[in-house]
């Protein structure tokens, strides 16, 4: 058994710094590269892409990335875990296989394919058997939005990824799998942790939580002494250096920018936290109140003491559904009296919308530069503000009403308060809203499948 396994995070979300994974592979020693591509509503975008083109439906960027890094990964023995497969894991894997063959790596690479998360075709059958898939936040039954569902996927945990690695895969591609599972799986595979070793499983899960948002634990978006964080232009993405006993160190490659210290790791630990006593994943329940941190030297934080509990009998399901339309219009008002002008323009706009008889489910006005982020906590706006952006958003099921709204913004320039600009972008665009419906499903309803293909 290796004494240390280094797992590097390459993407904090789909659309993160494109070169970060390359720098993780080339910038120093690592054993695994972990790539998280799936935000909450990403699957619905991929379903739409696949409906138009049966070969699409996965994170396209992943394939050219693999072209760039596969040779170095093979040379250095680096394995990859990625939830890049979206709703077409097999298609994604086939594209990576073709790239490997192109690169002359045929026979040198096995690709693991994890499926079984997609339950879109089973929704009616599940509802028919009384599995209501109630919304975890609002407790409404799924039947309320049944005819508008665009995707439905259970979050798979580490187990099928471990199986792929155990069967010799160098690259494991999943659909909807938890971000933490992508980090935990290599540790289970390398260290042989038992499936009921809850403390170690919780430790690997928390390692995953710390690095899953990329540089957000290594100096990015870090409030603590942000002015002093060096060279963010060259920010180093995080690496979890784990030991068989479940302790680990968060660090980054030498010679990179950013900073890993106690405050940077603490800020990431509390990010999107619910009840810290019970961080629930398919693999275990991790207790954040047991985490101990210690300074481990320059850009090194030691993490230890973590305790966990048995996993629950449920998996989370992420369902996306079409939820109407929205549009956001903006204009910029300048000194003097920038705020008062923006306020007056909003009144005029709303009077016109009223006269048109337009109905919206929601209309929201914000004054960017005065109160958009902190509301009344920001205090009374100064009359000397250099500029204020008026930002008005509307949402509703009636697409025509939203479209009509978009035609009422530009006219304010010639028919409203003076000192106005900022309309270069043209009319606001009407956007279809794809909303997120979190639910739970009994674990025994979901069977993950693992297939291995040779390049």
């Amino acid at each position, binding site marked *: 058994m290796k004494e240390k396994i280094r797992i590097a995070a390459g993407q904090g979300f789909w659309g993160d710094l494109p070169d970060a994974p390359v720098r993780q592979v080339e910038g120093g020693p690592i054993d695994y590269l972990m790539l998280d591509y799936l935000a*909450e*509503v990403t699957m619905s975008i991929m379903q739409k892409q696949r409906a138009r083109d049966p070969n699409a439906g996965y994170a396209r960027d992943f394939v050219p990335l693999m072209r760039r890094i596969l040779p170095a990964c093979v040379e250095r023995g680096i394995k990859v875990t990625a939830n890049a497969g979206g709703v077409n894991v097999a298609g994604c894997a086939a594209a990576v296989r073709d790239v490997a063959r192109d690169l002359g790596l045929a026979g040198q690479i096995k690709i693991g394919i994890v499926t079984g998360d997609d339950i879109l075709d089973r929704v009616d059958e599940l509802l028919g058997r009384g599995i209501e898939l109630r919304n975890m*936040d609002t407790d409404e039954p799924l039947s309320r939005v049944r005819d508008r569902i665009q995707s439905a996927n259970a979050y798979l945990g580490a187990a099928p990824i471990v199986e792929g690695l155990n069967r010799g895969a160098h690259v494991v591609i999943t659909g909807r799998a938890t971000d933490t599972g992508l980090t935990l799986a290599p540790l289970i595979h390398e260290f042989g942790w038992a499936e009921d070793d809850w403390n170690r499983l919780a430790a690997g899960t928390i390692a995953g939580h710390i690095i899953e948002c990329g540089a957000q634990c290594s100096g990015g*978006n870090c*409030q*603590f002494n942000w002015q002093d964080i060096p060279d963010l232009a060259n920010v180093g993405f995080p690496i979890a250096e784990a030991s068989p006993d479940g302790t680990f160190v968060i660090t980054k490659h030498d010679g990179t920018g950013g900073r890993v210290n106690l*405050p940077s790791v*603490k*800020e*990431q*630990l*509390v*990010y*999107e*936290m*619910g*009840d*810290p*006593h019970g961080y629930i994943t398919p693999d275990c329940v991790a207790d*954040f*109140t*047991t*985490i*101990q*941190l210690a300074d481990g030297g320059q850009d090194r934080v030691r993490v230890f*003491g973590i305790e966990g509990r048995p996993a629950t009998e449920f998996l989370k399901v992420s369902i996306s559904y079409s*939820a109407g339309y*929205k549009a*956001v219009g903006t204009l910029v008002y300048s000194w003097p009296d920038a705020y008062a002008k923006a306020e007056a323009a909003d009144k005029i706009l709303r009077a016109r919308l009223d006269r048109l008889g337009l109905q919206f489910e*929601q*209309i*929201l006005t*914000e004054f*960017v530069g005065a109160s*958009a*982020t*902190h*509301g*009344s*906590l920001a205090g009374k706006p100064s009359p000397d503000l250099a500029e204020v952006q008026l*930002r008005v*958003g*509307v*949402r509703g099921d009636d697409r025509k009403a939203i479209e009509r709204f978009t035609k009422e913004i530009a006219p304010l320039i010639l028919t409203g308060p003076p000192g106005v600009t900022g309309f270069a972008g043209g009319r606001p665009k009407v956007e279809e*809203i*794809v*909303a*997120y419906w*979190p639910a739970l499903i009994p674990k025994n309803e979901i069977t993950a499948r693992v297939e291995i293909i040779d390049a």
Partner: protein
Amino acid sequence: MKVQLIRLAHARSGDKGDTANVGLIALQPEFYPIIEREVTAARVKEHFKGICHGDVDRFELPNLGALNFLLHESLGGGGTLSLMTDAQGKTFSTAMLRMQIDISEEEARSLGLT
């Protein structure tokens, strides 16, 4: 005397549906007992009046010198439904740090805050 929370803590916030979470972390270990005592769920609910329309839950993490708050019904529906600039609640962290708390002159002096 009044001390603004930004002198005692740093913070990060995020979202889960229509709920914003704010993790509040003491800048120094000796500040943790003060924020634990002063920054109650009720105090946070009052601070975010007009912004947070639901309940506020508080959890303690003394191991990290941190408190975690859940501010329900704060994000205009949350996720893609929200029309807010900050639909993900990213700036609730700094909004929290605007809070003014009262501590005695003596305590402030002993902590080097005067």
